[in-house]
């Protein structure tokens, strides 16, 4: 079995999870604050990849990044970067695609923290950021763990977006889900089965891990 697709998938999921951990946490924090109309719209947009067909997202990204027109052309001519059919493009797509899996658990966990916690921190002279990093985040560790694992696992399963903007380029965009599809199309069921088993095993271990961890550390199973 050619392990490149598995390695690519893990790399994609790893990068996506790390970037979302860094960029998603402040965003979740901002969303957890007082409700406003803007926040509702932003949250709706962030949550949409949960229900939107991945082909829709892939189609718009293809339009946006196609090197023949608009933004894509500008990026290509000015910086010589091309996002379609490249690994970088997959990272961008995955960030959008997996964003709700990072944001939702973190946001609801932050909202469930008692207000007195941050108030006490402010009274002791800590800034907003210090409070966030040193008081709030350590208090929602189980949710952070869940969010990171779900983001990672969800990215492993990405297919529609990849096929649209990534195509099926070996070593570049042929992630495991695409490799399964490609192997089936070539009637190579042994290879399809091997890739599927690896994905099945990884996903099973991760999701079971979350449930076991949460059994001991969280109040609700999907927190």
């Amino acid at each position, binding site marked *: 079995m050619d392990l490149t697709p598995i390695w690519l998938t893990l790399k994609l999921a790893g*990068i996506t999870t790390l970037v979302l951990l860094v960029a998603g946490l402040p965003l979740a924090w901002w969303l957890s604050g007082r409700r406003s109309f803007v926040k509702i719209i932003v949250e709706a947009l962030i949550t949409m990849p949960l229900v939107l067909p991945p082909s829709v997202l892939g189609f718009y990204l293809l339009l946006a990044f196609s090197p023949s027109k608009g933004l894509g052309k500008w990026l290509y001519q000015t910086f010589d970067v091309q996002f*379609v059919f490249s690994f970088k493009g997959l990272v961008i797509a995955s960030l959008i695609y997996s964003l709700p899996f990072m944001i939702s658990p973190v946001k609801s966990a932050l909202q469930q923290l008692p207000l007195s916690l941050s108030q006490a921190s402010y009274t002791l002279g800590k800034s907003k950021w210090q409070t966030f990093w040193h008081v709030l985040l350590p208090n929602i560790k189980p949710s952070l763990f869940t969010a990171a694992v779900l983001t990672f696992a969800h990215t492993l399963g990405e297919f529609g977006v990849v096929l649209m903007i990534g195509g099926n380029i070996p070593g570049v965009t042929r992630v495991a889900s695409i490799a399964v599809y490609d192997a089936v*199309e070539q009637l190579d069921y042994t290879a399809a089965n091997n890739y599927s088993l690896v994905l099945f095993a990884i996903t099973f271990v991760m999701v079971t891990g979350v449930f076991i961890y949460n059994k001991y550390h969280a109040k609700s199973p999907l927190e």
Partner: protein
Amino acid sequence: MKALISKIIYFAAVMTALLISSGASAQVVRVAVAANLQPVIKVLQQDFKKRTGITIEPVSAASGTLATQIRNGAPFDIFMSADTELPKALFKDGFAANAPVVYAQGILILCSRHKVSLKKWWEILLSDKVTRFAIANPAVAPYGKAAEAALKRQGVYDKLKSKMVVGESIGQVNTYISTDAVNAGFTTLAFFRENSSKIPLVGWTIPDNTYPPIEQGMILLKRAEDNAAAIKFYKYIFTAEAKKLIVKYGYHVL
């Protein structure tokens, strides 16, 4: 928490380095191949590697899909289409270094896993034994277009429409046939030759004169204009050795 943050930053740095380094992989010739070529491209690839040491990376999908990907910047060096229209249009719009040259002519067959005693291909489809049959999407797959033409020519298209399952490419049609998801399907002689020893298959040739000839054209894409390895492979396809393999796998060559 501080330790966790520094760990995150460390991993992010490592991952970023990996991400950047992934761009600098070894030079290989990337060939976009029509899904119908899947069986033969594997042998051509091996034979070419043996002769020149050059690695070919085939990427297969429906020809129409590949053409769209090329228009949107897909990094392919050569396009081996299942027709000549798509490569012709790509050449006209400046994506190709040369006008398409026909490298093979496809042979359409009707194929099934079930022994049916009927002789005429359309009678098989009309019979009660066939509740579902597959054709590749005529909009993107030339073999689907040919099958559609043959059905219309025979005057059975409208009658059979309700039994028709449209596959996204000929590869998907082949999957449907081999998994028995459909009772029959329009596919290539190449598929039949490749698989009839592994799975019980019956095939009926569709007469050449009932569908427009499936002339498969090839182009060298603009980005490979100066790529010696790509040019070598392009030329190889027209050598006697390659032609022999192409014929062996169920195509006519000109």
